[in-house]
């Protein structure tokens, strides 16, 4: 296939601005700034059907249209926090194809009237950040950033910012708080960032991959983009394949490909083992079984199976996987990453992990499974942000699909082949 987002795989040295421009780079920005009004840019992105690639799937053009018109400070913030378990697409884009992200962000800034772009990298991605900073320097030198871009009235600056290790900072309001020098904790919406975001000014927060689509839409048009993927989920998507597949990595596909096809693309099941389950949205989506393998990877495709596409970070598990262990791993993650602001999440994730530990360790009772479900159900829908909802997904979905594994544990017959390791946090007694 011809890549649209992972074009660096076809074009050597695409991270260099000369190479990027030789392959049509910054033509989208030229078209937007020199030929289109800000409203026309928003209208094209809205008509393209592009939706947020960070996981939430909110229509990008609609998000941009929420920004109040007229004078005043506004901001574009790129979300390169990418901390979802199983997700590693934005890192590749930032390191290997940074100009496409930068160009998309500048177009976004032009459309909403922002003079400043911040790219919020997770702190662990400093190498990716440095690659992007080099590209930013090139973009300034070429006149695509700074004052009077392409000789127009439009001026824009671009800064990279580094977090310091907190999953919650991928949530847009927590990210904004973190960028303001506060604890990375979400706030209760409203106010929405489009009205009162960074420094209490209208702000658009877009995922890295989302913005990488924008230059192509500008150049090729909304209809072209709508022709890719499916009617309700147009376009292409980078899928992060990890776990028990032969060839883990990023795969760029048109929306609508099935999960079975994705596993085949990734070389099939590792060692020829039998498929058992997968997490379609990193750690935050409910697991699906072989019954859902032929579902299309779209924003709606997994609805009949009570799951979501999310960020399309597909963690594949084979027959050797102990599903209680997998749920425990994810519970440990969410307990660790809960920001602590709201009680159901802070306390609930702690208790879920504690109960799962007890069950996994062979000290659980049938009542513990009931209590586990009860705790999970008291977290869902009762938290400021989606972290609490995410945290319960691996737990409830593994209980739903693999109840026999839970039952076996509480009946004292441990069927887990995975070893416990000293690295795991001990359960407080």
């Amino acid at each position: 296939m011809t890549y649209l987002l992972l074009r660096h795989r076809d074009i050597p040295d695409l991270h260099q601005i000369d190479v990027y421009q030789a392959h049509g780079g910054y033509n989208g920005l030229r078209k937007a700034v020199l030929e289109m009004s800000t409203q026309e840019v928003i209208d094209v992105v809205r008509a393209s059907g592009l939706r947020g690639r960070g996981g939430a799937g909110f229509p990008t053009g609609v998000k941009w249209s929420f920004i109040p018109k007229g004078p005043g400070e506004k901001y574009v913030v790129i979300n390169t926090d990418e901390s979802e378990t199983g997700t590693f697409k934005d890192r590749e884009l930032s390191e290997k194809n940074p100009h496409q992200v930068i160009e998309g962000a500048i177009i976004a800034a032009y459309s909403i009237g922002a003079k400043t772009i911040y790219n919020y990298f997770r702190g662990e991605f400093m190498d990716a950040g440095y690659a992007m900073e080099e590209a930013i320097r090139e973009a300034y030198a070429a006149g695509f950033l700074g004052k009077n871009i392409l000789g127009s009235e439009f001026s824009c600056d671009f800064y990279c910012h580094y977090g310091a290790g907190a999953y919650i900072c991928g949530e847009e309001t927590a990210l904004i708080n973190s960028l303001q020098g506060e604890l990375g904790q979400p706030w209760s919406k409203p106010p929405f960032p489009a009205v009162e975001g960074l420094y209490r000014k209208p702000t658009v927060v877009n995922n890295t991959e989302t913005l990488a689509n924008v230059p192509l839409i500008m150049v090729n048009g909304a209809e072209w983009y709508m022709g890719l993927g499916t009617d309700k989920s147009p376009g292409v998507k980078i899928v992060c394949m990890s776990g028990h597949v032969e060839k883990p990595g990023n795969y760029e596909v048109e929306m609508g490909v099935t999960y079975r096809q994705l596993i085949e693309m990734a070389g099939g099941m590792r060692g020829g083992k039998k498929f058992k389950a997968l997490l379609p949205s990193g750690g935050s989506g409910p697991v699906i079984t072989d019954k859902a393998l032929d579902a299309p990877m779209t924003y709606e495709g997994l609805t009949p199976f009570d799951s979501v596409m999310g960020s399309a970070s597909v963690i594949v598990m084979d027959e050797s996987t102990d599903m209680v262990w997998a749920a425990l791993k994810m519970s440990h993650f969410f307990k660790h990453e809960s920001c602590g602001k709201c009680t159901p999440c802070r306390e609930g994730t702690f208790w879920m992990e504690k109960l799962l530990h007890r069950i996994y360790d062979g000290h659980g009772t049938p009542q513990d499974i009931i209590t586990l479900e009860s705790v999970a159900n008291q977290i869902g829908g009762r938290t400021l942000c989606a972290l609490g909802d995410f945290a319960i997904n691996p737990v409830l979905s593994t209980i739903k699909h693999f109840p026999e594994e839970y039952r076996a544990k509480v009946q004292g017959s441990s069927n887990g082949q995975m070893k416990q390791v000293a690295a795991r946090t001990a359960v407080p007694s």
Partner: protein
Amino acid sequence: MIAEKYAKEIEGILARFPTKKSAVLPLMHLAQHEYGYMSDEAKREVAAILGLDPTHVLSLAGFYSLYYEEPVGKYVLEICNDLACALRGADEFVEMASAKLGIPVDGTTEDGLFTLKTVMCLGACDRAPMLQCNLRFEENLDEAKFAALLARLRQDAKQLSVVEKITSYAIGE
């Protein structure tokens, strides 16, 4: 004092934001780079530069996992053993690393060179087992590659200046 030593860098960081407070995480990264961890003095320095209450910097140091509030080794080896990596042997890799270094997770070798930690997803699940060493990613690891990494780091450590050598510390139990 980072205010003097990194005056130009700090000025550049402050210029990016309309408020001083936004510069707190970058300055904390700078302070940790300088002192090896976020000591009380480092926190106070950052707070003083930005006109913040030191308790705010303290709360940030506790919130964000990349800041170390206790002394750590010269090289912090943080192995991801989250689910996606664990499916590809990260737990066993942690055990091997712990045995090879002779320290438990969160421990530091007696020579003060290595601290071993486990961390949540680092965004390199396709290249597990992997770790970050002082924010540099080392990927597709196995026992032999880990041994080679330790050898390389030990060799690098020998290149330290005399000052660094005589001020490096060993952390007791």
